[in-house]
């Protein structure tokens, strides 16, 4: 039975993961995601799972690597600087083709930065800070319900693609409360099922063959072949995992591009501009990688300007400009450092920008 409840984002992430079949969680304290680690410490054991508080984010991503290599559905979470520490592990996990779900409840940076919500990890999550050629599909929810829906499916998606799936939820989504509908719990994979459902996983040679999980390839030819094989998968992912929402872009004079919390504020701005008789639209990327370039082909050819609205110094603009491909000017409305602009601030700055494109 699906349930309607009022939940804090950080706790909802945990509940959605457990209902999505996850039974292994590894965490380390860092703000603003602590309620998730605390929730998992209470809930995982109760519900037949395992909770580990690691000694560092380096250890937590590598414990998660071990759990994934052994065939468990594992969830690991952190916030910006903690995700930075996990990058080496994520590169290993991509090369070893292990399924894993990672959540970044992001805050301001660089460095220790601050603990208020931020989106300045856009480059970190979409480009990856680890070494080598790899990609991680990244989804950025704009509400707690959407976070639940994404997390609920993320574990089977990770299994299907044998790759990490990253969720970028800014600190606002982690910290706020919203009424949500919880999905029906899925049955987790049992230890006995691993040998059959994940024959590549480490479950012992008694299953009839020997499994080796690795990323070392000393021969350049082998490594090149391996990376090319990974990229066949990524090319497929670029087609199949694109996800976005759009609103009124077909006849807009101005099109905003915005994700997560910022996109919700921009939705209000669009209505405010409509009251002034200005037609505005929104492209809301849900998948940040792959970036929804196709959404831009539906933009009104008479659109005067595309505005990227972000909580960083304009990191997404690189992708927006590539998608726009010179057809429209691209401008930025942003705040950073943990400041969330009001709808009025974005509205006024948008009006000013529009004034330049009469």
């Amino acid at each position: 039975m699906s349930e309607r409840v009022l939940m804090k984002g950080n706790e909802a992430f945990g509940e959605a993961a457990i209902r999505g079949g996850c039974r292994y969680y590894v965490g380390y304290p860092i703000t603003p995601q602590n309620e998730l680690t605390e929730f998992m410490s209470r809930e995982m054991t109760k519900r037949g799972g395992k909770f580990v508080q690691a000694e560092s984010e380096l250890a937590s991503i590598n414990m998660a690597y071990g759990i994934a290599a052994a065939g468990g559905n594992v969830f690991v979470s952190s916030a910006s600087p903690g995700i930075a520490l996990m990058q080496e592990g994520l590169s290993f996990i991509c090369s070893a083709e292990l399924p894993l779900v990672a959540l970044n409840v992001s805050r301001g940076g660089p460095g220790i930065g601050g603990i208020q919500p931020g989106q300045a990890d856009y480059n970190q999550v979409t480009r990856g800070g680890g070494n080598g050629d790899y990609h991680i599909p990244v989804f950025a929810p704009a509400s707690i319900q959407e976070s639940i829906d994404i997390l609920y499916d993320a574990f089977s998606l990770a299994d299907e693609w044998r790759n990490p799936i990253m969720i970028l939820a800014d600190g606002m989504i982690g910290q706020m409360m919203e009424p949500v509908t919880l999905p029906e719990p899925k049955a987790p994979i049992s230890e006995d099922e691993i040998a059959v459902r994940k024959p590549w996983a480490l479950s012992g040679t008694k299953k009839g063959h020997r499994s080796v999980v690795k990323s070392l390839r000393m021969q350049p030819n082998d490594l090149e072949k391996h990376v090319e094989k990974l990229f066949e998968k990524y090319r497929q992912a670029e087609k199949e995992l694109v996800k976005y929402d759009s609103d009124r872009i077909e006849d807009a004079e101005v099109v905003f591009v915005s994700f997560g919390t910022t996109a919700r504020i921009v939705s209000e701005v669009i209505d405010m501009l409509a009251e002034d008789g200005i037609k505005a639209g929104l492209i809301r990327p849900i998948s940040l990688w792959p970036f929804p370039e196709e959404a831009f082909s539906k933009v009104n050819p008479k659109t005067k300007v595309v505005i990227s609205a972000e909580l960083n110094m304009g990191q997404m603009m690189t992708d927006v400009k590539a998608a726009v491909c010179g057809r429209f000017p691209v401008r930025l409305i942003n705040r950073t450092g943990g400041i969330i602009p009001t709808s009025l601030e974005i509205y006024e700055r948008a009006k000013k920008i529009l004034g330049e494109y009469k």
Partner: protein
Amino acid sequence: MRTIFEPTKGMLPVDTSYCPGCTHGIAHRLIMECVEEKGRLGDTLGVSPIGCSVVAHEFMNIDMCESAHGRAPAVAAGLRRVHPNHLIFTYQGDGDLASIGAAEIIHAANRGEKFTTFFINNAIYGMTGGQMAPTTLIGQKSTTSVEGRKKEVNGMPLRVSELLATIDGAVFVERVALNSPANIRKAKKAVMKALEVQEKGLGFSFVEFLSACPTNWGYQPVDALKWLTENMIPYYPLGNLRCPEEVK
């Protein structure tokens, strides 16, 4: 006809990639003989480190995974969460375990993780070409301590077994040497006991093998064993530091 010797089924019938006189081959064989004798080849999981023995999975006939530099104990902790009854071990060198992986080994021991760590201490970084390790002896020359390790600059060599023996969760800690037939037989006994500790669920078990790296030490294999005997054993005394009653 009576069979008096057979290679262990725990090792794959391939040549190893280790240098002449390197003792990795002996350590591999001892561990895999013990796993076979326990009848656990089918449900043993191993974690290889970064270093020469990253490729241990090409030689050991069990399910294995590689790990990032120093993180093998974290990876093994992950494996353990999924497979509560398998035999699980990490195999790590001294650069991997005592330097970059110092935090992971200490916390795995402190949680009393129910797996075994086999620690190969050859007092040097092997794969990268002979740089100084935390275990390099005072006066020992390496490519990053060409005049020999100095206490004032690099501190004293780290005695990992003694360090871990202070941790409550590390219930079995023993240092052995692969320098003579007698010591190799003792080493095998220690491996057996460490695995028994794990099978009985008593806590974290740890065996340190004093090992030879003739290539990077700049010695012939026989001279390397002599150097180990004369220099390493006096600083790294052999013997058991902790052993639970149940396996004594």
